[in-house]
């Protein structure tokens, strides 16, 4: 491949620079600080892009080569490869994402897709780091020291498109080794096989536990079977005892049935007997209560009749009295009227007497007042006459005359006044109202007396007659009431008896009195009711008994008890207790068996597990073998590959060394691209070279490597002043060496000193 020209728009210190390059050696001699290394980095960046890294220890290219003038960073480069010429243009931003890339095929002047942004790797088949190490030769960096990196080794073997396997050799070998060590560690036994075997031991131990558990199961099964046999025997015995107890129970039931039947029969007889007593009907208690009350009333009537004595005498008195009153027995009201008339007549007589006295008094007072008034009239008339006499007797003056006349006039007037009053008073009868009242009273008294004439014709004996009449009538009434009561009681007693006797006649009741008989019936009634109830209860009891025990109970055969019930119950209880004990023992054995079974049940699983673990161990063992084999053959392949490129590498190295040091043949190249000095049969490391010589050996190594790596398309070599440590003689040889290299490939040789510049 040939780089034909390039243009740097801005890149680090370089700005707006264009270069045209030739085949062979392109010497770029500039002073220090011009930007030679920057140009070399620019060329690399045109192929690989700028390196953007976040590692802080290193100043990344994107920062280091950003234009100092702040312009757009980047440029273009024209190169030819395989008869085609391309122009790659790259501009770099602050971030990788801002980068621009264009590739033009200059034959057609059209964008080309022959290569992508990953142009360097696609052209040279190696990554940026490998590119730097193989064709980007600087002296002042550890990078200039070639080493057998994975990709370089791969490249050396024409692995243009298959570098991954060599790149990953170390990783692969490490992974294989790690995996193999995981299975079988280099030290100790803590690998997977070891762990699996440990697990196998544990499973075998668990299987041994299963063996023990199975033996335990057999033992517990024996116990269970023994317990079952004993329980069965006890159950048999218990069943026999139960049968005997059942026989006793049957006997008891039959006896009970017999007793119940007898009771029913007896109660039925009693009930029939009482039913006969009540053959004419069963009275109700209410009726009996009523009959009892009737007997009481009858007794009362009878005793009352007995209390009313001398009835014949009373009846005679009654007849006499009725004769006396000619059948018109005054009633009490009439007698009261007679008494009232009598009392009224007495009272009226008294009032009449009083009024007569009042009239007499009035008349006496009237006469006295009349006499007084007459005296006054006379007196005043005398006085008036006197005054007239005086008038005429004595010659009185006028006044005297007048006075005398006046007195006389007054006297006459007063006399006239009293005369007038006397006349009027005489006309008035003050006693007249009293007289009228007395007359009325007398009339009323006359009526009373007229009424009382029926009692007695003798008005003077009216009081005594009235009193006698009253006494008779009182006695008459008393006797008459007694007779009536007696008659009513006798009638009631008769009626009651007539009602009671037919009732009592219906029953053969015992008793001295009617009441006793009623009570006797009542007692029978109670008995009858009780008998009926007892019969019903007994009948129900026997029915229930039969329902409970079944008709077949009567058919079942029984035998005489072989042992007392208590004995049998004790035997049954003993059997039950023993069965319970054995059942508990059996349950314990079951539990134990279950516990053993839990362990024994794992056998199948454990055996499967053991089988799986054995398989796993075998599988691991096989895998370990496979891993170690894989590692072994991978190493072998690598060594074979190393051997295949070493010959070419060594030839190239010796060729270049002869160009520089034709007289020396003691320097050899190892498979790891390390140079050794052979002296006295020993190999010495390159530290034993002088610095300048070491540089030359290093350059030869790098060129040998580049030769071996790029057989078809040789990329240009970029040498960044690699001969600074050489003396003048060696520098001349080196430049001559470089010139000869330039015949085979394009070389970019950067230097800052004319002594190392090629003419």
């Amino acid at each position, binding site marked *: 491949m040939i780089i034909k020209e390039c243009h740097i728009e801005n890149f680090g210190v370089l700005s707006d620079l264009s270069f045209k390059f030739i085949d062979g050696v392109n010497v770029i001699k500039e002073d220090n600080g011009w930007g030679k290394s920057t140009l070399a980095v620019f060329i690399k960046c045109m192929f690989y892009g700028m390196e953007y890294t976040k590692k802080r220890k290193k100043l990344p290219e994107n920062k280091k080569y950003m234009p100092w003038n702040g312009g757009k960073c980047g440029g273009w480069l024209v190169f030819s490869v395989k008869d085609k010429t391309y122009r790659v243009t790259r501009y770099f931003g602050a971030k990788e994402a801002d980068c621009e890339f264009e590739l033009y095929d200059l034959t057609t002047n059209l964008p080309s897709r022959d290569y992508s942004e990953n142009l360097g790797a696609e052209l040279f088949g190696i990554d940026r780091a490998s590119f730097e190490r193989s064709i980007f030769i600087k002296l002042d960096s550890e990078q200039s020291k070639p080493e057998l990196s994975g990709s370089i080794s791969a490249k050396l073997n024409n692995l243009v498109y298959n570098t991954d396997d060599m790149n990953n050799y170390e990783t692969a070998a490490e992974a294989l080794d790690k995996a193999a060590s995981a299975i079988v560690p280099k030290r100790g036994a803590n690998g997977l096989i070891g762990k699996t075997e440990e697990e196998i031991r544990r499973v075998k131990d668990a299987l041994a536990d299963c063996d023990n558990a199975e033996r335990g199961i057999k033992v517990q099964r024996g116990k269970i079977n023994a317990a079952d046999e004993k329980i069965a025997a006890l159950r048999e015995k218990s069943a026999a005892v139960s049968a005997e107890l059942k026989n006793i129970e049957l006997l008891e039931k039959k006896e009970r049935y017999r007793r119940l039947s007898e009771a029913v029969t007896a109660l039925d007889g009693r009930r029939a007997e009482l039913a006969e007593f009540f053959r004419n009907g069963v009275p109700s208690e209410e009726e009996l209560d009523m009959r009892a009350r009737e007997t009481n009333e009858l007794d009362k009537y009878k005793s009352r009749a007995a209390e009313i004595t001398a009835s014949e005498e009373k009846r005679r008195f009654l007849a006499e009295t009725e004769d006396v009153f000619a059948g018109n027995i005054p009633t009490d009201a009439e007698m009261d009227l007679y008494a009232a008339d009598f009392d009224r007549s007495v009272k009226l007589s008294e009032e009449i007497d009083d009024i007569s006295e009042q009239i007499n008094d009035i008349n006496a007072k009237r006469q006295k007042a009349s006499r007084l008034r007459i005296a006054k009239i006379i007196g005043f008339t005398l006085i008036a006459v006197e005054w007239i006499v005086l008038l005429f007797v004595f010659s009185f003056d006028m006044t005297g005359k007048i006075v005398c006349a006046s007195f006389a006039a007054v006297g006459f007037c007063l006399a006239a006044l009293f005369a007038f009053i006397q006349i009027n008073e005489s006309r008035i009868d003050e006693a007249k109202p009293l007289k009228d009242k007395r007359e009325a009273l007398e009339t009323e008294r006359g009526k009373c007396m007229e009424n009382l004439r029926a009692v007695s014709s003798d008005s003077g004996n009216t009081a005594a007659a009235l009193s006698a009449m009253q006494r008779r009538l009182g006695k008459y009434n008393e006797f008459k009431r007694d007779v009536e009561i007696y008659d009513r009681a006798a009638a009631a007693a008769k009626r009651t008896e007539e009602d009671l006797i037919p009732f009592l006649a219906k029953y053969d009741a015992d008793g001295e009195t009617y009441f006793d008989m009623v009570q006797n019936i009542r007692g029978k009634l109670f008995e009858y009711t009780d008998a009926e109830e007892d019969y019903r209860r007994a009948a129900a009891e026997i029915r229930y008994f039969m329902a409970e025990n079944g008709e077949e109970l009567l058919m079942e055969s029984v035998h005489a008890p072989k042992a007392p019930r208590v004995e049998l119950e004790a035997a049954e209880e003993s059997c039950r207790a023993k069965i319970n004990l054995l059942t508990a023992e059996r349950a314990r054995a079951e539990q134990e068996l279950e516990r053993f079974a839990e362990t024994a049940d794992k056998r*199948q699983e454990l055996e499967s597990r053991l089988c799986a673990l054995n398989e796993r161990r075998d599988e691991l063992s096989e895998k370990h073998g496979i891993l170690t084999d894989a590692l072994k053959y991978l190493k072998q392949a690598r060594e074979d590959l190393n051997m295949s490129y070493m010959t070419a590498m060594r030839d190239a190295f010796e060729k270049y060394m002869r160009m520089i040091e034709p007289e020396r043949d003691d320097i050899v190249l190892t498979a790891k691209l390390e140079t050794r000095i052979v002296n006295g049969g020993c190999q010495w490391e390159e530290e034993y070279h002088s610095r300048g010589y070491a540089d030359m050996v290093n350059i030869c190594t790098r060129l040998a490597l580049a030769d071996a790596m790029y057989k078809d398309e040789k990329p240009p070599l970029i040498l960044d002043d690699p001969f600074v440590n050489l003396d003048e003689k060696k520098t001349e040889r080196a430049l001559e060496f470089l010139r000869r290299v330039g015949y085979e490939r394009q070389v970019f040789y950067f230097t800052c000193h004319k002594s190392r510049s090629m003419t």
Partner: protein
Amino acid sequence: MKIIHCADLHLNSRMESNLPPEKARERRYELFDTFAAMVDYAKNNGVRAVIIAGDMFDTENGCTRIKNRVLDLIKSSPETDFLYLKGNHDSADFPGETQYPKNLKLFGSGWTVYSYDGTDIIGSESCSDADGFPELDEKRVNIVVLHGQEKIGNLPGDNLIDIQSFANRGIDYMALGHIHSYKCQRLDERGEYCYCGCLEGRGFDECGDKGFILLDTGADGVIHQFIPFAKRRLYTVNVRLSGAPSGSDMIDAANGALSGISSDGLVKIVFEGDVDEQTDIDTEYIRRRFESSFYFVKVVDNTSVLIDYERYKNDVSLKGGFIRAVNESGMEEERKKKVIMTGLRSLAGRELDI
């Protein structure tokens, strides 16, 4: 009369061989749940008897809890008889029970007969042929219960039953247990013999429909019908690969093969075929991709690597050199492939499966 024929319940199976512990525990419960659901089915469909033709439990010493649960279930279904014939895996012992429920009926080592309306059910736990087989009333429906593997020719094996010895003995139906897949064949002109298979698949060797057989006995003999009843089904899906498929190619191929499989299924994806050495079959990655789509997923790589040694003859590269070195090593061909695949995986930076 309706009868259920089931077998190989393996109720106390630990289920840990194929499944992780949590899933195994869940599946153990599901085994019992399915059995309980079958009992409900029997109740709801007027089934008179349930024949359990062996291996109700997985181990002879089954755990008490499960056995008690079984007893409770049987007690709670008094209208259905459970005719239980012990298999080679289990025993009839129920801890703590000295008296079994009346509707739990066991078979002995000799021939035991349980009679129902027009139907006799005859079973033996230890008889392997018709030697000593009782005379049957041919007017009745005769069902024979046995547990064991069908004897074929003189092939050796455990728990073998000479089924052909029962031919022409008036049998209408042989209810068999031991084989975990449904199988039904003619015994003679009159009868058939059937393996009902297990009720639930437990491993990927028990794929396909699992359930029980419903028998309907009557004047016409026995009509049987297989009832798929498993809560979950197991599937083994073979995915053929060739050339150098990428991871997405493999997933696409597996996706195609898995279509139609219920999400509650247990799936084993088996990659088969010949692939070249570039192929990276990351079984764990593929398993994870399908993990959420099914109840359980297992991925197995059974592919064979084809290495074209001629292709690497002139390949001057580390890989070429490695393959040539292995090829010339003289080791067995299969081992060569494994070594090469391991080396190439390591070179490609891929994880090494140990």
